[in-house]
């Protein structure tokens, strides 16, 4: 072993982390080189000198200050668990929107029960109108809106030739 190689192995030899083969090599070098042996002794003493420096202790309030700062840290919220909160928020919004839209009554679908009965009465009244047999009236269907109530005797307002069941009697 050369002195140059020895310098790399010396630390491991002194702190006892070198394996047995490395230790043997270093010890063999000691027998050949007094300078390296002296240096090793001085390194060992140097380490003792370095140990003279006392350790410091953290101050009394150190732990409390760390705990205080840790406690002041924001806690994770439920969406903090989601890797991409923005994406999750958009998805949730889209879902809510679709649910809301699904609940909206379609414009051309089934009406409510109350309006259904009212409309069926109206339809019945209109159905009974004899006027519906009159083509001329039907062509001017808007006239129906002028009727106050369902006509009970539509025949009175119609010419005799148009009376129901009288289609053949006029002849």
């Amino acid at each position, binding site marked *: 072993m050369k002195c140059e190689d020895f*310098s*790399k*192995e*010396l*630390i*491991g030899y002194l*702190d006892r*982390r070198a394996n047995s083969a490395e230790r043997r090599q270093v010890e063999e070098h000691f027998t050949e080189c007094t300078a390296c042996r002296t*240096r090793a*002794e*001085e*390194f060992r*003493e*140097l*380490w*003792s*000198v*370095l140990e*003279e*420096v*006392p*350790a*410091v*202790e*953290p*101050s009394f309030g*150190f*732990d409390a*200050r*760390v*705990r205080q*700062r*840790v406690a002041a*840290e924001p806690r*994770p919220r439920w969406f903090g668990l989601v890797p991409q909160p923005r994406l999750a928020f958009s998805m949730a919004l889209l879902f809510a929107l679709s649910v809301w839209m699904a609940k909206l009554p379609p414009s051309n679908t089934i009406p409510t029960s109350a309006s259904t009965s009212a409309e069926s009465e109206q339809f019945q009244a209109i159905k009974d109108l004899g006027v519906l047999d009159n083509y001329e009236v039907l062509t001017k269907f808007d006239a129906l809106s002028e009727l106050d109530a369902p006509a009970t005797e539509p025949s009175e307002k119609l010419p005799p030739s148009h009376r129901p069941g009288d289609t053949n009697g006029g002849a």
Partner: protein
Amino acid sequence: MVRSDVQLMLDVKAGDDASFDFLLQKYRSPLVNFLYRMVRDTATAEDLAQEVFLRVYRARKQYSPSAKFTTWMFRIATNLALNSLRDNRYRKMETSIDAPQSNEEDAAPRELPAREMRIDEHLLDRDRCDFIRRAIETLPEKQRVAVLLHKYEEMDYGEIAKILECSESALKSLLFRAYETLRVQLAPLVGQRVQQRAGEGRLS
């Protein structure tokens, strides 16, 4: 059952703050000491140590046990200490006339001198420690980190090499150069000890 640091950290990650307290108790002293030896100011060292713990806590959700917990924590501490030194603010405080001296007195907790101990002996002891601290301080940053982690934290080469981001072989050379510099700088103290040891050898 004693939980490993990695297990404690995984528990912190799962939301157990009591495990973080275990880590705080375990590493408060080594961290403050390491940082004090780096920046040589107790208040700064404590501020930096608090910051290290806070960063560890903040990073709990991303923590994965790929490296030893101490490697990770001391890497954070090393980076913070080097940034602080480069910032130069604390060095300026040290060289000022008023503040550093009082800091220095706070920084080095010593036992009160025994009644029979002469005041000059006590001062000699203080000067001796100060001499050693200053010798360490004069080392280049990377060498200083290597010596502190090797000598005072007793970390293995692999761990120190990871913290300093170098190979183990490079670390051994770095340590040798650092100790060689210290041997020269502290020659009076080292020589004294060698002579003392030689004297003891002759006596025994």
